[in-house]
């Protein structure tokens, strides 16, 4: 059976094509569902305790949230470029874009650590109140997804560096890239929910 992943892009776009592995898409759906439950739980609880949530939000750093948004979007952009390069059999640019994506992901990690340390210094923790329980639970859960995504991207970059995607199926690459975009997609909803809406 002909593997469509090795076909030129023009050939692939003629018929519907799902990038990556089907199993990864089921995993992505499961992850998105869990995050959806968290988002809805946060919104409902916020309506139940508006004063507690407003006070809790006042201790957050919207600039840090905005920096992390830019970092994740930029990282996603580089991953998309990396995938595009590998489709054109350009190994070196693909690896370089992937490294750039990982650097942006690292920026997210540093900012998030700084944000957590600021809150810990003020004496806030996961058990401080309902707001901080939800805040730490949701952001730490997302943080773990970023770490897992970084491991996946590093693995992909290493394989690309070794030339293991040359003239071969790239569904693994696509699956990893889509996972990373899912992490970005979740943050796109998480950012206004936690930092922007008052």
């Amino acid at each position, binding site marked *: 059976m002909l593997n469509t992943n090795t076909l030129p*892009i023009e050939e*692939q*776009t003629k018929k*519907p*094509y*799902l*990038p990556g592995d089907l199993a990864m*898409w089921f995993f992505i*759906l499961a992850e*998105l569902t869990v995050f*959806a439950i968290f*988002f*809805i739980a946060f*919104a*409902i609880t*916020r*309506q139940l305790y508006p004063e507690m949530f407003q006070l809790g939000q006042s201790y957050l750093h*919207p600039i840090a949230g*905005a920096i992390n*948004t*830019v970092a994740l*979007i*930029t990282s*996603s*952009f580089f*991953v*998309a*470029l990396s995938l*595009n390069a590998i489709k054109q059999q350009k190994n070196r640019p693909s690896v370089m874009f992937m490294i750039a994506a990982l650097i942006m992901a690292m920026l997210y990690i540093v900012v998030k650590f700084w944000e957590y340390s600021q809150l810990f210094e003020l004496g806030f923790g996961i058990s401080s109140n309902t707001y901080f329980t939800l805040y730490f639970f949701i952001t730490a859960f997302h943080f773990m997804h970023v770490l897992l995504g970084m491991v996946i991207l590093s693995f992909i970059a290493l394989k690309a560096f070794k030339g293991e995607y040359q003239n071969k199926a790239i569904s693994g690459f696509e699956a990893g890239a*889509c996972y990373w*975009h*899912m992490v*970005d*997609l979740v943050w*796109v*909803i998480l*950012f*206004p*929910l936690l*930092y*922007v*809406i*008052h």
Partner: protein
Amino acid sequence: MNFRIALKAYLYLIGLTVISAFLGGMELSVTDNIKNVFLAGILMISTFKGLQIIDVFMELKHAPKFWRNLLLSYVILIPTIIALIYLIF
């Protein structure tokens, strides 16, 4: 997807993030009724950003309709549910 399309989507996403942050800042100094409009606007921006990520970065624009619609419905439904919770309750 080529570089130009990806760059366009990237700039669009960054632009929407700036607008969203700006609306968030303005939301603090408006009355409750106008605040609701800002809230709806901020969540709508999340939806637009999600649509770009799904269609351009995830490259689902040419994916089977079932999968694309599934992902699109997520970025439309979740912000809508959040908006309804904030506006109704």
